[in-house]
């Protein structure tokens, strides 16, 4: 019944056995024990489960793990390089982009894809790109400001 799949998660190759019905998010959380990726709903609405799959933001609750066979997955645990925080993490801290922290990993992983775009982005367009992720604590303002701040950080470095 179980199938063997290969993943590269946060740079490390791994082989796991999953039922076909195992959602990617549960493979990440319960088999790989990477619990930074969260589940906040059952309708693919909240985005707390967002990870990067081959560099693209996806909702890991809306993919079967078998679909990710052979893919590279980046979770929130893969953002920092040892002690050094990723710019998006630094910005979330600096701009107070999180309160309870539950939606935060999903928000940051989504932001990672948004930050790949080189063009300037209006606040309105940035907000539209966040529509797959729900936050109840922050009213979004500091999240938006965090992402804009990370953009500035990354541009400064580049």
């Amino acid at each position: 019944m179980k199938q063997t799949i290969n993943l590269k998660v946060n740079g490390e190759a791994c082989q796991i056995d999953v039922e076909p019905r195992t959602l990617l998010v549960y493979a990440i959380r319960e088999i790989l024990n990477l619990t930074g990726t969260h589940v906040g709903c059952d309708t693919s609405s909240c985005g707390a489960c967002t990870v990067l799959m081959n560099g693209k933001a996806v909702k890991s609750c809306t993919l079967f793990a078998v679909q990710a066979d052979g893919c590279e997955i980046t979770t929130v645990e893969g953002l920092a390089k040892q002690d050094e925080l990723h710019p998006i993490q630094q910005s979330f801290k600096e701009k107070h982009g999180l309160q309870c922290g539950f939606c935060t990993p999903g928000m940051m992983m989504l932001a990672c894809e948004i930050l790949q775009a080189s063009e300037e982005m209006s606040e309105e367009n940035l907000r539209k790109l966040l529509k797959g992720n729900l936050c109840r604590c922050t009213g979004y303002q500091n999240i938006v400001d965090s992402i804009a701040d990370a953009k500035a950080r990354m541009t400064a470095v580049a």
Partner: protein
Amino acid sequence: MTAIGQPIRRFEDDRLIRGHGQYVEDIKLAKMVYGVFVRSQVAHGLIKSINTEEAKNAKGVVAVITGNDIKEKVGKNFTAWIVPNSNQVSAEISSRPLLAIDKVRYVGEPVALVIAESREEAYDAAELVDVEYEELPAVANIEKAIQEDAPLVHEGVSRNIALSWQIKNGDVEKVFSEADKLIKQRIYINRAAPIPIEPRACIADYTNGRLTLWITSQNPHIHRFYLANVLGIPEQKIRVIAPDVGGGFGAKIDVYNEELILCYASSLLKRPIKWVETRSEHFVASLHGRDFLVDVEFAVMNDGRVLGIRGQSYANMGAYLGTVSPGVASVLHGLILPGPYRIEAFDYTTNAVFTNTMILDADRGAGRPEAIFVLERMMDLIADELGIDPLELRRRNYLPAGENIQTVTGLSYDSLDFSKVLSKFGEVSDYQALRDYQRKAREEGKYIGIGVVSSIDICGFAPSPVVGAVGLQAGQWESAVVRFHPTGKVTVLSGTHSHGQGGDTTYAQIVSDTLGVPLDSIEVLHGDTDMIPMGWGTYGSRGTSTGGSAVFKAAEKVKEKGKLIAAHLLKLSPEEIDFSNGNYFAKTDPSKKLSIQEVALHANVGWNLPAGVEPGLEAQAFFDPPNFTYPFGIHLCMVEVMPDTGEVKILKYIAVDDGGKIINPLLAEAQIHGGVVHGIGHAMYENIAYTDDGQLLTGSFNEYALPKAHFIPRIESYFTETPSPANPLGAKGIGEEGAIAAQIAVANAIIDALEPFGVKHLDGPYTPARIWKAIHQSNGKNEN
């Protein structure tokens, strides 16, 4: 040192942004099994039979438990608020069996618990439990439930009324007969829900003679108290841990059936059991908020003075009473209804109504948003009727500035100064220019509306004798421990629980300033009843003002004890010692000094202490505030309504709040952001809708719309500081203020925009369809 007042970045962030937070669902224990609940599909019905055979035989199933299995073995889940002089129904009627017995009273009521080796097997087996119901007539809304011939939710009562509580003061008959005008309105505030992004979850482990419960809770000690009462487990044998919790907003105050039955089941199976709620379950089986129907009448003079208020409120409690819901429907609502205004006479009866719906309880504000909604809706109706500018009308009615300001309902506002807020509001808003813009825009066929509201909140829960007198079966003081380690580092324990508010940072700021210890030497801990002294948790915007004051008090005690030791070591008397910036020194010769860290080392090793002084440098404090705190403010919302579709665009949102002394402006402002968006959501997007016979129409995020980033404008947040005399910090609390003010600011702005169509009043939710209907049913005036 001056950490207080600084925008210190949070200490809790590091683990959370690395994905290293530990929420309940993240925890795994050896031999852990998984629970899934079978829930009622009918709103009201007799349970004819429950067939669990197939489920019991399914793969991986460890146990299936129904109400009859536990009937004699556990107590019921009861309300902790018994409102005096209210004819509140008895606990026998209002309490919930942990699993339904013979009868179900709302869709989502737990009927059976299926426990299996894996989550998948538990879900698969839960589908195999076959429950047969005989449906009974159900009632889901207030208006139907209070009719004489309505189906009764409970046996043994003659009507679906859970309690009626009257507040009366002043010569009501006189002011209503002498007033120039009486203005009357029925106002309905639709049902919504708190909706933290982390659903509820718990793990019960009763395997080694002690019960440990990990739970998504805002108040772990209250859970411990309940577990002892409902399950009969000695309280010292219970440990409740609320680790990282993903938001609460009221939804994680209540003690729910699920965790109680899970603890009992773990004692039977001798295995840890985990249950994680799905979001859809959260909508049918946790708690909702708002859902108040209010009939109210205001007695006013032509110059705008409001003399009196009278009326009735009806809150839809659902099928049972929640942990604090009787208070939400009565005390927390009625007492604040006069708001920041000078009212002479008041007669208001709050009623709580049973229906076949999920439980109602605290939702960011809990009774106060509904009161301020009614008040400020009425103020706009009055302004419109009398032709007075809405802000000016409010100005004419404000209570005077000062401390301990008495209200007609018997409250004593700790400190109030609307002139300060008004002046700040004037600085940042240019209100007249916005009104001019509105007028011009209307001439161009654009429908702009402005809502400008004054609000006040009851916070800082609370003086224990007062809450005891109004029926809460609990205290509301708070506890803290400040503990110096031998190396001079400090651990702080708090009986509150931070689930986003940032208490780990603000409490450190308080300790740092009090003891002169660097922020990075301080660790704040909370959320484990084995480690933390009894405390009452976080809600009612009580964390900083009440919990923070307990921390402050404990730090002061530590400082005083340290002084005795320092004096001894410096060979001086304590009276000769001063303390500043972390150093004890001789008043006459500041070069003779000892740092508090040096004193801590001496205290901890105990080699050389003054006579009668115990070793160690730590103190525990309990702070019971002499009064509530009352933050207040003015919020402005400007909207544009599209008449062809009923869509609303928020053009501007300004919040000016007085939260007393602000400990951390970065965190305070973020509380306002979140609160305001909660209020905008409740006004425009969020609606819990039931069919008349009690089926939930909005049972997931596919129907219930939480505000998304692109629905929301930037929030301009400003503070004034009028210190509270009710605590040593002067702090007030701003967790709910945003939600309270925003819901009505948005509503008033939208209704103001509809003025050219002759719309005077409209109930929420302010969805495009409802707005469009209001436009097109309004005599066709100015229709385009």
